[in-house]
């Protein structure tokens, strides 16, 4: 297989640059000078355009097809957002420029802080954390400083349900907390008795997402908040599943003290093969003095202010103060993602709840289609999956267990996932949450049509009807066949060897 290192043009003949503005007098001491240049490819633009176009064609994105990856909210990414993010007023801005030079950017930051506070029922928001996991870390750091400021440093435990995203326990642990994992109830929901048994004078916080990773709304969330608060702990809302509830309820009403948002899930910042993300957090008033610094703020314009965005306000970076945890990213967060998310939110405005409505509709519709095949289709299916959780209704996502299928004919969740690739779909999230055996977690999002959902259900049924041999040896039509992950971990070939270079 060819790689970029196969391009071996003549030295210095690739992409051209202007000459240095003056011949540098040789001020770099000999010993500091680089002896051998890195073995980078020597390629021209036409060669590289073809190389990367070829690689893109071997990559599956939302643009390629249906991407029902549960928990990841793979919705369409409107293209105007990319156009805006390349404007010089964001792309060519330095984060340390004076407020007077970035009034437009500050006003967008301020508007986003306000919007996120409104949607979540929080009092203050920072846009500095650059990923969901960093948002979790930031919020738990704020909670940690809050307890310390109250003389309660002895609170050293964070409670997470066993259905939580892996980042929750990892973030709590990075802050220095012990993690107490509590089992879910038999219906997949939060087990209130287990929570009661877990809380105590050492509880710092509980981290939970609602709806849960099973796609179920935690109906006893208010009681959970009461139990944790009575023990002196704080409630943290993992906003990964925020796409399910906007405008219908909010974490503030549920009793949460802090929340993170995933601008790359709910607000359509593209996932880009794994990032960038953006993970702002919102907090209730009592935690706001601990937020990272600075946050965007504004005051009414006064005479003498230079021209701003002409809305009657002067915008500025406000220092959070001496109790702030400081910085979690050295600049002001992923501003480019904030601007994209701003452009996305502006499409919906006060109608943001439509987004959640159609996301939940699509999820329930697809679940219904999959679990209720027509009799003639059902007759051909060897074995149906089980529901990951028993419920009349789910929220934005749902889980299926392939256990019955595996027991009958050895077809695992992974096999079905791989076979779906042959049908032109991205696989659902596999084997998560871990409490559902052979789990497939499916989140269609609001940007898929009924036809796509109908077709997916039909193809899913077709797979369940196929010769198990075909399914267990899938995929068959992808650029490579099933990849040996054990081989990769054993050989650890983590870079090109570049052994046959001419220099």
């Amino acid at each position, binding site marked *: 297989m060819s790689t970029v290192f196969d391009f071996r043009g003549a030295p210095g003949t690739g992409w051209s640059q202007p000459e240095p503005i003056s011949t540098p007098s040789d001020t770099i001491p000999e010993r500091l000078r680089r002896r051998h240049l890195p073995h980078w490819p020597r390629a021209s633009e036409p060669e590289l355009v073809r190389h990367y176009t070829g690689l893109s064609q071997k990559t599956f994105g939302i643009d390629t097809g249906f991407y029902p990856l549960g928990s990841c909210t793979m919705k369409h990414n409107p293209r105007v957002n990319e156009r805006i993010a390349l404007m010089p007023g964001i792309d060519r801005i330095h984060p340390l420029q004076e407020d007077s030079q970035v009034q437009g950017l500050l006003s967008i930051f301020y508007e986003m802080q306000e919007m996120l506070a409104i949607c979540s029922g929080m009092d203050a928001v920072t846009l500095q954390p650059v990923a969901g996991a960093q948002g979790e870390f930031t919020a738990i750091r704020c909670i940690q400083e809050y307890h310390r400021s109250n003389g309660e440093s002895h609170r050293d435990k964070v409670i997470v349900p066993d259905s939580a995203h892996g980042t929750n326990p990892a973030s709590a642990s990075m802050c220095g907390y012990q993690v107490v994992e509590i089992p879910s109830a038999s219906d997949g929901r939060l087990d209130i008795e287990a929570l009661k048994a877990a809380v105590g004078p050492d509880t710092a916080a509980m981290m939970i997402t609602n709806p849960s990773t099973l796609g179920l709304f935690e109906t006893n969330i208010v009681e959970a908040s009461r139990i944790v608060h009575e023990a002196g702990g704080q409630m943290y809302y993992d906003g990964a599943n925020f796409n399910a509830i906007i405008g*219908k309820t909010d974490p503030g009403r549920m009793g949460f003290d802090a929340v993170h948002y995933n601008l790359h899930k709910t607000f359509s910042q593209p996932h880009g093969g794994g990032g960038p993300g953006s993970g702002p957090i919102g907090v209730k008033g009592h935690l706001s003095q601990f937020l990272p610094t600075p946050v965007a703020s504004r005051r009414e314009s006064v005479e003498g202010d230079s021209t701003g965005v002409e809305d009657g306000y002067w915008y500025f970076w406000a220092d959070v103060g001496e109790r702030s945890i*400081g910085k979690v990213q050295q600049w002001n967060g992923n501003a480019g993602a904030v601007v994209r998310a701003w452009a996305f939110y502006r499409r919906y405005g006060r109608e943001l709840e439509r987004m959640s409505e159609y996301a939940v509709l699509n999820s329930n519709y697809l679940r219904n289609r999959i679990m209720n095949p027509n009799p003639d289709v059902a007759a051909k299916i060897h074995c149906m999956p089980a529901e990951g959780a028993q419920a009349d209704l789910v929220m934005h996502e749902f889980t299926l267990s392939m256990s019955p299928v595996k027991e009958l004919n050895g077809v695992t969740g992974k096999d079905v996932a791989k076979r779906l690739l042959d049908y032109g779909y991205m696989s659902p999230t596999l084997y998560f949450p871990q409490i559902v055996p052979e789990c497939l977690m499916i989140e269609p999002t609001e940007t898929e049509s009924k036809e796509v959902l109908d077709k997916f259900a039909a193809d899913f049924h077709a797979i369940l009807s196929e010769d198990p041999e075909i399914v267990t040896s899938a995929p068959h039509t992808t650029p490579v066949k099933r990849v040996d992950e054990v081989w990769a971990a054993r050989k650890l070939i983590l870079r090109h060897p570049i052994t046959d270079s001419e220099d």
Partner: protein
Amino acid sequence: MVDQIPNLGRESEMLGALGLSSMDELFANIPEEVRRDEPLPLPQPQSEEQILEDARRLLGVNVHLDSRPSFISAGLARNFVPTMVPMLATRGEFLTSYTPYQPEVSQGMLQAMWEFQTMVSELVGLPISNVSMYDASTSAAEAITCAVRVKSKKASQPSSVYISELVPPHRMSVIENYAQGVGIDLHTLPHNEDGTLDLEAAASATGSCAVYVEQPNALGLLDEGLMDLREAIGGSTALIVGVDAVSLGIIEPPGSWGADIVVGEGQPFGIGPTAGGPIYGLFACSKEFLRLMPGRIVGQSIDSEGQTAYTLTLSTREQHIRRHRATSNICSNETLIALMGAMHMALLGPEGLEKLATRVHSSTIATLGAVTSVPGVELVNPEGCFFREFAVRIPGSAKEALESMDSAGVLGGFDLGNWWEEMSDCLLIGCDEGTTEADISALTDALGNWIGGASR
């Protein structure tokens, strides 16, 4: 009216299939006591045209770096990004893919990241690179916590890490946030009068878990003495070096002088300064740190027919498998920006990298020469050799000088008083490949005029 929802107006049919008659019924599981009944107090939905108009108006108010002579860097680069880079990286398949958990349909992104790892490895002189951290500050912070995991058991100072006092406060703050939960004691390494690291004092780090220094340092100074730091601290302490990635086109990479982990801002390759993000952090290390390092790694593999293939590997370090025992909580990273970086690096090639570094260095020297010939301006480290940035002391307040230069249409640098109070009469002046003779004249005129005016 909103768009982006294909099923808008078709809900009755779909609800009917579920035996429901209203959208509200879908949310029946949300208890009454937490329901939101009133609409969100937000503006009316906008069309693409209206959004674009507002974006142009608001972002158009910002003063961007290419619109005037600009000399602000402070760890980021006012770089030139080849047109191919954003055009190819935003192809929909790259842009809208998720983390490549299904390697069979992600070979393109996986291979691009494996090639990225190789180019970073070559650049810094270490065998292993991950596929990016959030930025240089979190790379440095997680390098430190990683080094402690690897080194603390055998270290005579098991919880100690030593950091150059010239690491600026905003970066230190990130490091402190990441280090505090792990119980790491951060000690400071002092510098000599001439701005170089005090190597004798650095010997006190012997037996600690790690030393973190930057080359060039935050004042742009290239410190030859750092090449003796390994000897000064002994073999058992991890040496972590933060770099200006472009400088490695002309400067010996830290992997060649004893560094175990190299971190830095990847941004100069691939993307504009973007108001501070999304950018990406470089993270490269030696084999000793591989199994306890943060972030995703791509490995070469084979498929069931023996063909070459690529896949994420060593995932058992990561949060989705290891949960609270993971080496990091990082999940979303900056892959797309790293992809842009890979494209930019591949376009440059070895000689192009060297030329780019030479251009930046040449701009630095030319600017330094012109600025220090303005009467009243003194170089903070007069004996130093600089890359991209240098600090000057001026007769008066840096803040006021910058305001005056701003009104003359020049972005004259960064007020170092923001980082260190005792340097409030110092400017950090940043240069790049785009700096022109005309820019330099504008800077020296504006600075000279302010000094002349201020002293009158």
